[in-house]
């Protein structure tokens, strides 16, 4: 079933809470769902004969600071009917809250923890919402567009100088050293051979 056919079915059931964007020329089409109806819509998609989206393929988010929203994007696939669907839920960037899909697909557990970790979206009803990839005391949400690094973690530095810069500094200091030892050359006994410098 195509996205627009699924949209017609959902519109009959959920009205304006599910809306479709105009289909893009290339790439995937998607449906936008209001956050408060999300679990209901997903349960309908999973359990209705003819839709049967049994596989929650992916759940992730995209940050849009210009529109002041974080979109949570859910990719669904039906193993039986071989069709797929993209659902989007918009959450306010200031305090993004989206209902958890864990009651519908258990795989949402880790996906939502990851989104919570990297975007700071809170999923209400999630059984164990903790940071997944980052340490528990990490500050900030790295995949947001305005994320600023905190400069290390517990004394572990997160910036490293370009090794070429370091090498150049060593070279420069060696050269300065050589120049210093060469310039106050005693006039009495000029060395027969120049002193070997450290830069080979």
């Amino acid at each position, binding site marked *: 079933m195509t996205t627009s056919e699924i949209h017609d079915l959902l519109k009959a059931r959920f009205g304006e809470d599910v809306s479709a964007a105009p289909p*893009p*020329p*290339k*790439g*995937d089409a*998607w449906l936008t769902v209001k956050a408060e109806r999300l679990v209901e819509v997903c349960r309908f998609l999973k359990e209705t004969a003819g839709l049967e989206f*049994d*596989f*929650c*393929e*992916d759940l*992730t988010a*995209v*940050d849009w600071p210009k529109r002041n929203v974080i979109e949570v*994007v859910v*990719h669904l696939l039906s*193993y039986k009917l*071989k069709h*797929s669907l*993209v659902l989007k839920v918009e959450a306010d960037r200031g305090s993004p809250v989206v209902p958890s899909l864990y009651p519908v*697909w*258990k*795989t949402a*557990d*880790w996906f939502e923890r*990851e989104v919570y970790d*990297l975007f700071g979206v809170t999923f209400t009803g999630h059984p164990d919402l*903790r940071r*997944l*990839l*980052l*340490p*528990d005391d990490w500050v900030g949400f*790295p*995949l947001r567009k305005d994320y600023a690094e905190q400069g290390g973690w517990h004394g572990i530095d997160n910036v490293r100088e370009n090794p070429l810069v370091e090498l150049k500094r060593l070279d420069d200091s060696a050269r300065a050293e050589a120049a210093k030892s060469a310039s106050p050359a005693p006039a009495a006994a000029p060395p027969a051979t120049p002193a070997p410098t450290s830069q080979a």
Partner: protein
Amino acid sequence: MEKLILRRVDRNNEEMILNFGPQHPSTHGVINFIVETDGEVLRKAVPDVGYLHRSIEKIGEVTGWHGFMPFTDRIDYVAAMFPNEGYATAVERLTGIEVPRRAQYLRAISCELARIASHLVSLGTMSMDIGAFTPMLHGIRERETINDLIEALCGARLTYNYHRIGGVAFDLPEGWKERTLAFLDHFDKFLVEFDRLISFNEIYVRRLANVAVITGKDAVDYGLVGPNLRGSGVDWDVRRDLPYGAYDDFEFAVPVGQGFKGTVGDCYDRYYCRCLEMGESSKIVRQALLQLPEGEIMAPKVARNLKVEAGEALSRVESARGEMAFYVVADGTNKAYRVRARTGSFTAMGIIESASPGLMIADLVALIASLDVVAPEIDR
């Protein structure tokens, strides 16, 4: 979550909380499991991941569209062809670039060789985790030949960076086809030998059969993919069911777990599905080499400074660890707005907490090994 503890909870019984990892040799990379046990029996094993998080998705927003390709290698360095292919396919879907037929065949050939190599590592390390060292050496020996072949093809043995948006980087070198066909002839015999050596070994079978059974329903619900899903009896393969690239030209079977030595969905089924899959991959490579069409290996006019119209696309490829999906969002500039890799190991780790209660500690090792998790793919 309390970490780094090794203590008795109660003096009167055998309850313990202990760390399994992050440097444990049988955790397949840097993963930590916080294990609650009662004697030898697990109450629960809670995976604690993230040690290899390199923020590859964030890097994708900074590099250009082409520039991200070498980073995708690092998502799954045991089978780096698949993230290459997944990312390239996603951007091609978004831009509408048509990949020439020959390039699609070369992608299929390189990917299937990478799948065999990855499964050899997976099966070898699995048997090693369980206590048999020799099969690992057999597996690594064959993988070495594949590495040599791939090195001749693209110059790299581990992080290939072979696929490009719109095609592949290099054509076949001279004599490569014959070398590969000769290897496949040898490899088909090796599979029989490997089965005799380890797969049908009574001790090995008893160690794995009926251990850590995952039902088909659970496997779908928890989003297991690839051999883990098929091991649980779900007949699904992206290459066959949603064909991409050149895969609709090839004849191959999709091995599904049927309780080969025990119950459907036990560790042995997941193991043996991979064994059978290697044979199918060998078939695909052979067909692709024999039917290889002439022509270009890159789509014409793929701009160096690629700009992609606003939109989004998801690509699905069947990686060695199951379905790998790349979700790319473009905003009209020469950089991706968002790149996301959905990987098989990530969801496979998600099931361990619920599949572990009641297992022996030694069986947890078998479960992790049979799920074939690769740590960088979990953390990205």
